[in-house]
């Protein structure tokens, strides 16, 4: 394989259930099929676990849910893409279980190989817009309970665990790690992708305001520019709706059937940046590379 003109690594970072594998599968489908216009075109296969990639894209095309990525290891794939100037860009995507990033927050620990991977390249941070764990105000909860006539239950104090921290706290901590050894590599570009956008857009907010509303701490961190992030916010629905579950005897979902009916599966994908919308997942990639 010819040496690429430019080498890039884009780390898709996110907590468990943030949609990393689904995004990768959708991206791979886009690049392989080029059913829709793309900023980056397919050049050639690179190195990596293509059996894994093919397995997840097959599931995606069938509108079936992805299995969670097992904790057993980091699978990495790379692909050579061509930019508008026909330059070869090799992009490497480590498909990392969300538990690894969770460990960075909870255990203050990181796998050596993951550290090596994250110590260079730019970052695509995925946040599931449907499962954001927001902080709760005790006074709010109390007044809500009173409003609906529900008695306030006497709770038993329990030991706090890092997993109970709000999502934005975990994410800010995660991003701060990139500014410190062993991951520090100077200023980087960051794409924040709010996944499951089809669910989140009900808030009637564009992606960046959505970030400010739901994850204010994260937005403040990014705006403060303490760690030199050059950042953008996108909304993405890599599935376009709810996919079928893969467990046995699961009831089919109407959304999945509808999505399978779409002629070009690439059109299931929705990428929202500010007020523009497209199907092209390579756009944020291109921005990350230059």
């Amino acid at each position: 394989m010819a040496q690429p003109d430019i080498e890039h690594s884009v780390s898709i970072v996110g907590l468990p259930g943030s949609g990393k594998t689904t995004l990768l599968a959708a991206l791979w489908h886009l690049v392989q099929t080029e059913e829709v216009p793309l900023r980056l075109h397919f050049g050639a296969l690179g190195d990596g676990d293509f059996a894994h990639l093919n397995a997840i894209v097959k599931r995606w095309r069938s509108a079936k849910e992805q299995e969670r990525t097992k904790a057993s290891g980091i699978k990495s794939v790379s692909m050579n893409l061509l930019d508008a100037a026909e330059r070869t860009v090799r992009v490497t995507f480590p498909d990392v279980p969300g538990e690894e990033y969770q460990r960075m927050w909870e255990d203050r620990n990181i796998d050596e190989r993951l550290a090596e991977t994250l110590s260079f390249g730019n970052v695509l941070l995925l946040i599931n817009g449907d499962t954001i764990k927001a902080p709760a105000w005790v006074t709010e909860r109390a007044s809500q309970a009173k409003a609906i006539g529900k008695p306030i239950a006497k709770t038993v104090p329990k030991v706090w665990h890092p997993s109970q921290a709000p999502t934005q706290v975990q994410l800010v901590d995660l991003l701060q790690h990139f500014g410190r050894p062993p991951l520090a590599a100077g200023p980087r570009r960051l794409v924040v992708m709010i996944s499951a956008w089809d669910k989140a857009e009900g808030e009637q907010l564009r992606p960046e305001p959505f970030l400010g509303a739901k994850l204010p701490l994260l937005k403040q961190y990014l705006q403060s520019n303490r760690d030199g992030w050059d950042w953008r916010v996108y909304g993405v629905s890599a599935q376009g709706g709810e996919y079928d579950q893969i467990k046995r005897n699961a009831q089919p979902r109407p959304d999945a059937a509808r999505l399978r009916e779409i002629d070009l599966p690439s059109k299931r994908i929705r990428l929202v940046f500010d007020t523009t919308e497209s199907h092209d997942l390579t756009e944020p990639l291109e921005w990350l590379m230059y």
Partner: protein
Amino acid sequence: MADVLGSAGFVVQQALHGYGDGHRLLAASASLPPTDARVMLVLSDASGSSAEFPANGYLTGYPLAGSAKFVLARTWPAPEMSRPGCVWTHSLLIDFGDLARMRSATGLIELFRRPEGGSRRRYETPLKVAASPARRLAKVGDVGAATAALGTLYRRPKQKVVAQYSDSSDEILILAVWMQQWPRLRRGFRFCSFAASDRSTSGESFDLQLVDRNILAHRFRLPGTAIASITEFTAALEPLLDDLLSPDCEGLRSFLRDVGGDVASGRAGMLPLTRLFAATRSSTFEQGDISTAFEALDELGPAQATQARAFVVEQALSQVEKLGGPVFQLIMDSVASTGKELSKPLAERFGRALWSYSPARFAEALSEGGVVGNAADSSLRSLSREDLIEGLATFPNAADGVLKRRHDLLADPLFWRLPGLETDTLLEAVAADPGIAAPVLGAMVSSGRGDIADMAVQRLGGARVIEALKTAANIASSNQLVPWLNALAPTDLASALAGGIVRERSLLVAIARTTHPDSVPNDYGDDPWAIAVDGSTESLDIEADDFLGAFLLARGLGHRSRSPGRLLSQSLERVHSALAAGRMPRAGWQLIDMRLPWVWSWFEWDRCARVREAVVDRFIGSNLDPAHFATLASEDSLWHSLVDLAARVGHGRRYLQRVRRTLTEAPDARQRERAEYIKECLH
């Protein structure tokens, strides 16, 4: 047989992993170091994607080196969870020490519980493993699968082994294989009873994984991976298969437990240990079995299996007398390397066998000491002289070490016939111990080692040699005595004869045959020969006595002796009788003949007459003691003839007067009759 040693059972820690905003540790009865926690997090997750896991879950076993614990875990699919691919894993953490003592995994299997409901508290306290579980695990039923698993695991010890998953009964096979292993192997054995992908990491390979048939074809045909196959099985593993199907039926797993402690080669050690077991179980345990046993030990490596090595040596030593050649050398090297002293009876047997195997090596061991040297030393006293001498014949250099403890060898004539002896050194040692001189010299003489006679006389003295010759003369041939007698100085002989030391007629004869009648000096006192002969008794050897008589006669007729008359009176009658009977040995006549005066040849035939005349002339000419003349012959006719001869000449007649006076004064009547005869003769 109890499933677990000891009546109290033992305690295990436990942990529960499952999905809670990511796959994580949900509950545990103990905390773990971060590295081990990480390993558990990874291996408690599903064994792969897109697989139909068994509803009852699957087992995973692996060690946590940092915590010195072994994890046996059961993983169940968790379809009730929101995300696909979630699992529950209940892990039991077994201390290595407890794992070593376990005979069966039944007690562990019974403890697994899939979480139900939200409570995790039951996983936060340690669990007790029952000493006697309520039920036993079923026996291994699929002989084919067992054969394939054992063959591939132990003939391809460096490879990851994968086998086709059949059903949940595969767990029985895996657990049986695991429990069969000796503790050290067991605690490093990684296995999974249902793997949808290879669970090995870069640092730690899984030894055995059972895989769905469809996945096996695609994902597991990788370098370093061996698919379990019956073709890998070999006859040498038969005892292992028998043991797997019927635990410890022949004692194999007990043997593995006993000797596997210092076998660090992992699965590679199983085949040689099984071979070793088979070899040492032979009822006869012959040379071939021992060779096989040592070959197996060599496969394990020199620093491995010291207990097994000690076991083989012990077995071999029980038949040490039958060992030979290279096998004995192997045993000897092993005995030396263990450094453990043998019991006294065994040490003696071993030492004797060592002597038989190689006297050179025996001598080396004696000088080097150690276990082998001590065994050699302890056996020296019990080795027979014959065996020792036979061995020394092949390696005379061993004599030095052997003689330090076995002086008695010096008293054996066979010893002195050994080639290459350092005689000078040996004689010095004998000289330093006068008590052994006599038997040693006797052995030297009997051995025919005339070549060392001079040296022996020089080192030990003539008196000691003569003392030895007194005994040796009865058993040694005259040829054997000659060099010794020749080595003696005449003065030594004189002292011995005069001192009455030599009374044995045979020795006197031997000396007479070896020396000249005039060689023994007589510078003072009575003649040594006369004294010695008086103290001895006639032997049954007529020829020998005749010769001795001739010797004494010849000496008496000579001029060395100060007691010629006594000598002549001791010998004349014997000599005369022998000559008359024609039985005088030629050597004896030669001695006499040289003393007799010349006669015309036609008178030579009458030897008796010549002797009579010579004797009479000697008495008369030298004026010998008339008392001796009076007793010159007991037979009257002979004595009368002597008197008649003497009376022919005038100085003879005067001499006879003196004899007559001596006889007249004798109290004996017979002697007075002889006096009368002389009187008549003179008239």
